[in-house]
């Protein structure tokens, strides 16, 4: 099975991307290519929905880490939702994404982002 990448419309500066299949040495460049315009845009958060991702190797982890690094450099963040156990294990071993930025469902990731957004809005009103 090959890689599938579905980019959903950005909402409130947050972009959701569903990645499925195999993210490996053959397919990571395709992910890099599809994420590049998103990383160059003004989004502040990128949520990777990994529910259908079945396989990842270090080449794939590198792509995710690179995206996280690009967002972090401008104060943005990358969240991971719903990784299967074998994917979660790989992420844990190489500490690609901090545990508190990995969520068991998209709903949890959304709730986290909403809470962040609320905090930002409240902060703005306090000024």
């Amino acid at each position, binding site marked *: 099975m090959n890689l599938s990448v579905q980019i959903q419309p950005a909402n409130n500066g947050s972009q959701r991307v569903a990645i499925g299949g195999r993210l*490996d*040495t*053959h397919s990571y460049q395709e992910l890099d290519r599809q994420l590049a315009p998103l990383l160059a845009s003004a989004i502040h958060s990128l949520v990777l929905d990994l529910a259908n991702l*079945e*396989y*990842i*190797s*270090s*080449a794939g*982890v*590198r792509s995710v*880490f*690179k995206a*996280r*690094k690009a967002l*972090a*450099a401008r104060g943005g963040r990358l969240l991971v939702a719903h990784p299967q*156990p*074998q994917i979660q*294990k*790989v992420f844990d*071993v*190489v*500490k*690609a994404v901090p545990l508190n930025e990995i969520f068991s469902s998209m709903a949890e990731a959304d709730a986290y982002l909403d809470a962040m957004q609320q905090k930002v809005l409240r902060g703005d009103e306090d000024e």
Partner: protein
Amino acid sequence: MHILLQVPQEEGQLGDLVAAIDGVLAREGVHPGVAHDVQLVTEEVVCNALDYGRIEGRQHEISVGIAIEGDLITLEFKDDCVAFNPLERPDPDLDADIADRPVGGLGVHLVRQLAEEISYAREGVHNVLRVVLRTEPPGRPA
């Protein structure tokens, strides 16, 4: 159970090799989570051997021996590339700040962490890397 697979050592052949290994593991009833780790180890080892050891203009071949005994899977990778011991590579600093962390160097670390045992030997003109994995995934937290 013991089986030996041989493929030309080219990146394009990796998919075939992984598919063949996966077929063997499925036939032997190996847990899919463990099959994932075996595929991962194979990809990392073969890609590293290609990246560091390939001699331009020469045909290389890699063989992978798979032995399943009791609750252990032993993978033996043998290639005729330049001598390269992946175990001599330093571990990446995973706790460094994200801005300072390099994006590479994770493959060997992954293989070491997933393996129950790992050893390297240069035997004549061959690199031989032996990686042992458990056939049952370790107990996962409920």
